[in-house]
């Protein structure tokens, strides 16, 4: 079973993402900010990480930069959830090592469709 780490400071978004992914047959672990996610990611392996950008303690872009520098996450799809439709965050995210992005608001179907681009 493919393992996904879902990171969001908003409990409702986290639950939605996690519930959707679980229903689609993924094994999901949740984290509420970048720093918690990083700790979990260091201890366990994941096939993909989906992270919000704006979070307390450690934001999503920093998380992605940190993860990408870890040997275990060299090739791992790292996706960011973003509401910024502008280019800024996307380029910033890409520069930090993000694989791609999912623009909020999205529904469960869209989430799974996007995920198919990087994990099957």
């Amino acid at each position, binding site marked *: 079973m493919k393992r996904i780490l879902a990171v969001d400071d908003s409990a409702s978004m986290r639950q939605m993402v996690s519930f959707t992914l679980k229903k689609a047959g993924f094994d999901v672990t949740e984290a509420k900010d970048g720093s918690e996610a990083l700790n979990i990611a260091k201890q366990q392996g994941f096939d993909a990480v989906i992270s919000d950008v704006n979070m307390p303690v450690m934001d999503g872009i920093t998380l992605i930069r940190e993860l990408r520098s870890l040997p275990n996450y060299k090739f791992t*799809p790292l996706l960011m959830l973003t509401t910024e439709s502008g280019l800024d965050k996307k380029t910033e995210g890409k520069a930090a090592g*993000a694989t791609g992005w999912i623009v*909020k608001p999205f529904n469960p179907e869209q989430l799974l469709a996007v995920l198919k*681009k*990087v994990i099957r």
Partner: protein
Amino acid sequence: MSIDLSQFFEVFFEESFEGLDAMEAELLNLVPGEEDLETINTIFRAAHSIKGGSGTFGFSAVADFTHVLETLLDQIREGARTLTAEHVNLLLKSVDCLRALLRTLQAEQQPDLTEADELRVKFEEILGMRSKSKVVQQQTVSNETNIKNTFQIDFKPHHHLFKTGNEPLYMISELAELGELETQAFQDDVPDITNLAPEDCFLSWRFFLTTDKEQSCIEEIFEWVEDDADIAITLCGGLFGDEEITTTETATAVVEQKKEVEPIPVKPTTDTKKPVPVKATTANAESTSIRVGIDKVDSLINMVGELVITQAMLSQLGEQEITEATIASLQEGLAQLAHNTRDLQENVMRIRMLPISFVFSRFPRLVRDISQKLDKQVELKLLGEQTELDKTVMEKLSDPMVHLVRNSLDHGLETVDKRVAAGKDPVGTVTLNAFHQGGNIVIEIMDDGQGLNTQKIREKAIKNGLISENDDLNDNEINELIFLPGFSTADQVSDLSGRGVGMDVVRRNIEALSGSVEVASAPGVGSTFTIRLPLTLAILDGQLVKVAQHTYIIPLISIIESLQIDISKVSRVGKDLDVLRLRDEYIPILRLYNIFNHKGAIETLDRTLLVVVESDNQKVGLLVDDLLSQQQVVIKSLEANYQKVDGVSGATILGDGRVSLIIDISGLIKLSGLRKPGSQELIIESKANLEAS
């Protein structure tokens, strides 16, 4: 796969309300010009989360509104705009507006968007933006065609592609889903084995895709790797292909033009489809769920585990033959069980305990709004915010506290001029302090204002017939008068305090929670209202007493002492009231058997047990046959199960299964007729009379 999003609504609403509370608190801390980045960030994140969530869960009205808020906050955060007092006010109003919107949505009603639209226009004026969103939506005029085109796609990933986490294989299979796909792979760049860098991508591809989809669908597939690969998509063959492209291009151009020409929306769309203005039903907002820290849950699980072990041990003992040895371990097991049960009970109670900051947190806003209105300068200090209190008590505490704080601001604190004239700091201080004391929580509301005007209170009380000209009352007694029904010191009924809710209601509300409220005041220095409440309404430490053949429970907290009556210290006042001289005080003796109509109790006073209790600063002695054990009792409501009984606050079930009544001291005093109606004094107040007898 379809997923019902409504299952996440409750969590969304809860966290949004929390977010709004956090926003409000942070906004109140903001001083324009001195704002720190972390505060702005916190506010931004809260708005951002609400926007993201509401968009995802289909509350577009909230999402649209939060969008402008977020944009402004983002600009402030990025330093593109400086925060002004006007911004703060507007943001605070938006917090209120959002809260109302979300409440209505939570109640599954159609929200009234008038206020939100008005606020949004203000934000848009600040931001200098036009509401583009509507125009953009028109852009999605679907020009779907059934015409099939063939695209040639050249895809040459850069060497580092894999390190972005992207996978060409999945992209190719996505392409294949769009239509008929022909694939050519080029291996020319692949170096020989000695030079091969295993983590790099050396392959490149050329595809021919025949599809009825738009070119944008193909672009979308490669969206994430635009900068990590050379991608060229060209239309080859197909009918009317070129024409197709030009039409889409002009269409966008037109729309873009339209965007610029679009006039400034002067007014929000108020008259189009005005939803039925359903008043947000705030009444049902009393939350039914509770957030519990994971540590509390963990310790509960832990204890239940221990309980199960003890139970297993006991049942094992039960199966064995009873011998001396098993009895010893049985007793040990039972002691263990008692211990486990008590721990479990304490911890379950802790679940209902929340920090009082839940109530305190609404005051910064209240104080800010009121002080602006009154044109007074006020600093609010909050102390002991982490003091925990039962959730039910907390919910009922809020209104009386609001009243007391309003009162302090309105009547207690002076205007700036007066304060300066009196040589005080122009900024007045209101302090809310909470702490635990014994089994009670104490909440103090202090102000450094002018204090209660005893002269004025006295005049008023005489005018209202509460006291007579001749009554000689000390300042404390005069201050107590404000809690009497029908008393208001405000010369004219003001918008703030004179809402027909007097201090008597405050006292009644707090007494309904088995608490008490009192005031201390010094002229020119300030006044302090002190509220005392039991920590929880569900459990009480009780002293079991015997009256005739019945067992009653006296709340331990109200007991001062228990003693045997020395008959020589007893005097009779009037026809049937006995008083005991205890040190310098005279304690009226209440015969419980008389009050509750029991026969067969000990009626002589000499050497009989007397429990001295105190309520509302008045001491009385309760005559009982015997003192039994002290224990924690679970309070069952008599009103819910039977009906209200005067002098009794509730009932409990004893270990042997019998029902026992819990005595309500202040009710008992009233019932016994010791207190003059509407007065705090007891009849035997006058010491002179006694000494004369």
